[in-house]
């Protein structure tokens, strides 16, 4: 099923990024290298955000299973008419957003606070992120409704 593949893929992507940053931070710590990885705010905040996403996955899946356990159905009902069960599983999407955050800050210099708007350098990445977001929503919709192709 497409939705399960997508959910697993986004979780794996977030875990990949988290373990990569953690590997480098631990590598730097254990070998007491000259480069201060922990002093890099972008890497540090991305690691913290991705770690909290994992706690989010755990609590959200617990919530989804509670919804599933408490779900009542009459005979002849559609199983997931409203999709309430899946609405709470947003942590993989947040992890993806965090990957884009660190890439935006590291590669494109981040959003300028004083300009009050979108930095021209970020437009490319924003377009890519927006497309991925729309495609993700459409794909999730397709997974249980089957409408868009």
């Amino acid at each position, binding site marked *: 099923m497409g939705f399960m593949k997508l959910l697993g893929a986004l979780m794996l992507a977030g875990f990949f990024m988290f373990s*990569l940053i953690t590997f480098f931070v631990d590598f730097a710590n254990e070998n007491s290298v000259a480069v201060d990885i922990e002093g*890099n705010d972008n*890497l540090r905040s991305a690691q913290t955000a991705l770690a909290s996403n994992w706690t989010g996955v755990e609590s959200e899946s617990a919530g989804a299973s509670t919804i599933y356990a408490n779900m009542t159905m009459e005979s002849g009902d559609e199983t997931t008419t409203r999709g309430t069960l899946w609405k709470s599983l947003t942590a993989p999407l947040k992890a993806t957003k965090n*990957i884009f955050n660190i*890439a935006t800050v*590291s590669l494109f210099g981040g959003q300028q606070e004083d300009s009050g708007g979108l930095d021209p350098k970020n437009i490319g990445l924003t377009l890519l992120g927006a497309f991925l977001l729309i495609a993700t929503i459409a794909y999730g919709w397709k997974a249980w409704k089957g409408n868009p192709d």
Partner: protein
Amino acid sequence: MDGKHGKETLIKMTKYQIPNMTSGMDEVLVDTARTIPSFIPMFLAFIWGVIFIGGGLAQKRRTGYMDIPMWATVASFATCMFAAPMMFTSGEMMIQGTTIAILLSITGLSGLWLILKNVFGR
């Protein structure tokens, strides 16, 4: 020398000492990075490009298809492994934390691309 033609005003290339080649490859890298700070990022970009283009074209020659996200991920990962020991040198640093952050971002984005391509593309 020749003031008439204004040769003193020419901007001259920076000269640097030839690195000591007898003390090993690592000393050469450190010496060059000390003189030219952009050497290491360019070196890492070279490694990335060699693995990406070389691997991708080899795959294309054999299978007629180049898996761009996969080779981007493989190249980024290999470049990360090259970059990690460069953090060891004390004194003048070979590699900066910013370079590591950029490298990790590219690796993360490549991995996301690879994983999403395998979900959306099938």
